[in-house]
């Protein structure tokens, strides 16, 4: 006989409360703002989907969204292959393994605003080591506070420096879990190094790489602190990514309605891309 009771709910309740107060309630507040207009004094007017339409049509949002996709695309296309290459060239056993792992983990342990500040000082012309080297020693004009291209190069190099390790560590974990017999069998089968990578290492890394790409996509798509500290979105609006723009609208201009609508659109895009990617990558395994 099967006995049923509802006691399990009590165990879930604390988590439910926690999630409600740190996620559901704030999000519902945002939803609330996104469909209303207010002039203060807690007086609200129903606005419908006007804010959403306004945001989606605005050039400013489209430009920020474009910059955001460009940024994420560039860092992924650099960090993923670079991370795999570094993971492949790391030793599989020996005393250098822990040394490599610690060195790899270091950048990820630094607080994000510190990363921004470090790179800011590092790259400033005259003051910073890199800025000085480029301008005064090598004679290449480099000033990320003035030149949009230099600013882009700097935020991308900074992100690569900060986060490639994540791809490296996850790929490495996937690589070391491959039994030696696979490599020995491949040797006996006469497989070239490229075929070993293509048919053994890459398939075995697929799951961890999916997670790595997903994490890097979400993190880079929502990136705020480091570029805010480094460039503040400038020069001009050249490095104003979505999150920076959002904060400008919400806290700079206090346009709560449009900012709320923009947040929800932003959230929906992140969710949609992550879901699409994950579904595509795990499609074959489902069978």
């Amino acid at each position: 006989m099967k006995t049923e009771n509802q006691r399990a709910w009590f165990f879930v309740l604390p988590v439910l409360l926690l999630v409600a107060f740190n996620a559901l309630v704030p999000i519902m507040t945002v939803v609330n703002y996104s469909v209303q207009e207010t002039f203060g004094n807690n007086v609200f007017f129903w606005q419908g989907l006007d804010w959403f339409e306004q945001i989606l049509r605005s050039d400013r949002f489209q430009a920020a969204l474009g910059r955001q996709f460009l940024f994420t695309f560039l860092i992924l296309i650099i960090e993923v292959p670079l991370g795999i290459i570094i993971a492949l060239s790391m030793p599989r056993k020996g005393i250098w393994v822990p040394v490599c792992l610690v060195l790899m983990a270091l950048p990820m342990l630094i607080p994000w605003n510190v990363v921004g500040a470090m790179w800011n000082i590092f790259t400033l012309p005259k003051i910073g080591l890199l800025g000085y080297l480029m301008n005064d020693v090598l004679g290449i004009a480099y000033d990320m506070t003035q030149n949009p291209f230099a600013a882009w190069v700097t935020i991308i190099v900074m992100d690569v420096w900060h986060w490639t390790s994540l791809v490296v560590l996850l790929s490495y974990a996937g690589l070391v879990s491959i039994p030696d017999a696979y490599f020995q069998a491949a040797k006996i089968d006469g497989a070239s190094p490229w075929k070993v990578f293509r048919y053994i290492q890459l398939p075995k890394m697929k799951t961890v790489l999916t997670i790595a790409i997903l994490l890097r996509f979400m993190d880079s798509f929502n990136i705020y602190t480091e570029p805010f500290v480094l460039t503040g979105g400038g020069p001009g609006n050249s490095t104003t990514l979505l999150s920076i723009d959002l904060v400008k609208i919400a806290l700079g201009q206090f346009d709560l309605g449009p900012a709320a609508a923009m947040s929800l659109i932003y959230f929906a895009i992140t969710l949609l891309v992550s879901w699409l990617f994950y579904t595509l990558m795990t499609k074959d395994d489902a069978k």
Partner: protein
Amino acid sequence: MAKITLSNLRHSYMPNPKGPEDYALKKIDLSWDDGGAYALLGPSGCGKSTLLNIISGLLMPSEGKVLFDNNDVTQLPPDRRNIAQVFQFPVIYDTMTVRNNLAFPLRNRGMSETHIAARVAEIAAMLEVEEMLDTRAAHLSPDNKQKISMGRGLVRDDVNVVMFDEPLTVIDPHLKWKLRSKLKELHQRVRATMIYVTHDQTEALTFADQVIVMQDGEVVQIGTPVELFERPQHTFVGHFIGSPGMNVLRTEVREGSAFFQGHTVPLEGTISGNGGVTELGIRPEFVSLSDSGLPARIRNISDVGRHAVVEALVGDTPVKAIVEGELPEKGAAVHLDFRADQTRLYRDGWIATEAAS
């Protein structure tokens, strides 16, 4: 295909081996005929996998040579030795279909597609995997994966030797038997030299024409399954092969006769050599309960189906006997009879009686 000769082979995993205990393989001299089915049998850690990896080229021996048909291949990497090896755990290329898995070793060697198609079809027919040729290998069951691994080993028709490193470890017991007979059948069809490494005596004895028994990095005995069973050259072989293993009993030797617990025991032939630790070896199959003989007391009886294993104490030494038919009571006083032509003396582990001719 080729005759394989191992000459003066030694291997140590340490950079500076000193005594013989530092060697995983201690001086191996062996030669294997073209087309034979061999088994390397021994407990875990006896050096059999090391030996296999040296033949396949995954490992360089510290000393000695590996010859294929009198060509020295000691320094050649695995892909240039033209050998095949099947591992303990099935190695398959997950993202490829079964067909591409089987074709992989041929494609890597630049064979023509018509030749590849013919070979793959032939091997698939032999292994009875034709209907799964177009499924992705990742979705197969473990025994089918191992079949595909074997298929990749057999697909090249010019290999010098096909080696199996405990290939049935991960296979369910009821499928083990099937795969094993499949292997035996394959050997008869392709006539390639095959070396089968295992610690399971049943696997070794059913697969091989010649079994090489190893212990502590040394070859203890080479022989047909019957030879290993009937006349073990070393007490280790007696112990290791047979279920239960051979009775090995401490024995005194005086004036050319063997005394076990104060009773003389007739042996198969004259005793050779002298000194050392002497032991009597007799298989439980050749110990019988009789009216006369060594007085003993039954300590334990375990019925294993077709027959029973009876353990009797002679003095303070347990002796096992295989008894069919009527069983004595536990604790009963009986007499044990050792069949003389199957009773041997071992000195320091090695056989020390001359064979009855």
